[in-house]
């Protein structure tokens, strides 16, 4: 049985596993996660997929706030935390209790990177997410900014206001603003990788090479041969449980 812990509370005993992927837009993480889900299902595992910004109740407010341009850095951060909290309570924790493999496309680190890129305090946003379950393994898809930008900008011309960070007034041009904003987010991600000990995937390699590497990375955890690493002592506001409380 795996011990599941949150960033702020003592661990609970759930049999499921939680794998999460992170990375800037165009890093290819969603493709890789979809392939992983297919493979795990074909292997007979119970797989639950959870996506950022998808709580049925909260996403309507988020969409409304984005459309009307009502969101500030603080309310942008809080409404996404609301959405995430709803999913933790109603989707992620019940699935982990049921013994499922939960795959999450973006997790708390997305908020840590994006919200801080918007000027929100690092310590505050980390504290905000203390209710989150610590993943079994978090994987960061590292890709040069130019590669990611090319993937996004060559395929999808219409960037949305908040997606491009236009609310920050970095640049009058949407595409230029998007580039500057993505760079800020990437810088934050690189810090987060260190701080929380995320596994790093070289996302410049061919899809099938990455997929094989990803499977190899998670398999020992799925089989229970490998236990989650003890929490890294990151930001002091996180109040992580002591290592002796983690290993089962």
């Amino acid at each position: 049985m795996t011990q599941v812990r949150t960033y702020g509370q003592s661990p609970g005993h759930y049999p499921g596993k939680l794998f999460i992927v992170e990375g800037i837009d165009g890093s290819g993480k969603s493709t890789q996660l979809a392939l992983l889900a297919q493979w795990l299902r074909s292997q007979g595992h119970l797989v639950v997929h959870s996506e950022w910004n998808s709580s049925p109740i909260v996403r309507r407010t988020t969409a409304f706030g984005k459309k009307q341009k009502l969101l500030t850095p603080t309310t942008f951060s809080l409404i996404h935390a609301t959405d995430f909290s709803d999913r933790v309570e109603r989707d992620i924790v019940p699935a982990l209790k049921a013994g499922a493999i939960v795959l999450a496309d973006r997790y708390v680190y997305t908020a840590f990177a994006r919200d801080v890129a918007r000027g929100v305090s690092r310590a505050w946003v980390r504290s905000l997410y203390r209710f989150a379950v610590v993943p079994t393994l978090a994987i960061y898809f590292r890709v040069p900014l130019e590669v990611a930008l090319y993937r996004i900008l060559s395929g999808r011309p219409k960037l949305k206001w908040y997606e491009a960070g236009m609310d920050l007034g970095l640049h009058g041009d949407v595409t230029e603003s998007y580039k500057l904003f993505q760079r800020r987010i990437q810088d934050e991600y690189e810090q987060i990788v260190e701080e929380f000990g995320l596994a790093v995937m070289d996302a410049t390699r061919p899809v099938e090479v990455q997929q094989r590497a990803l499977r190899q990375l998670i398999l020992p955890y799925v089989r229970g041969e490998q236990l989650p690493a003890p929490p890294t002592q990151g930001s002091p506001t996180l109040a992580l449980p002591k290592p002796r409380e983690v290993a089962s």
Partner: protein
Amino acid sequence: MKRFATYGESLAGVSLDDLSGWLIVVEGTDGVGRTTHVNRLRRHLEELGYAVAETGLTRSDLASRGIRRAKLGNTLGSNAFNLFYATDFADRLEQQIIPALRSGFVMLTDRYTYSLIARAIVRGADPDWIKQVFAFALKPSATFYLRIEVEDLVPRVLADGGGFDYWESGMDLPMGEDLYDSFMNYQRRLIRELDSLAHEYAFTTIDATRKVDDISDELCDRVAALLAPGRPAPAV
């Protein structure tokens, strides 16, 4: 000197340097008569010549509709509700409270972060965590706590025709076998939490078991004295 500060966290992209005005909070549990007293206080201050604005829980452009929808079905996680209220509060802080203070208004607030912190704690949230969530809130100029015991609350809640409200009775938890039991237990816990916050944040406690006129006279006098120290209270 800066007139307003937060509880420790800055608000991204918002300057507090140019704020004047007063932020007056009226706290207290449901049915204690907050709305009546806020209305009377508003009239009194306007008679004295102050520009007065008003806000209260779930009155934000951003989140009020969403919170109403979520309440209808009881379909939102309990901790998500805590954060939804925080979103509503942050929107009102940035879109209503701070602009009003920037223009030198007296901002009357019918409940503040304290009620939200109390309801979260009663629902099992870590007190340190929920206080930290609200650390971007402005410290009010003054907080007046209309205090009452749950036994005094029951006749008021029943007499005004509304009866026991599902949420104000903590029925999402629930805290008793029926609406009455749950209301009593929930409100008792809520009052206990507010008492503890009153101590921690130095509220001015007003005994709200007295006659309505006595309560509102005390509230009006105290706020008038805060706004214009040294000026004698005007004869009505």
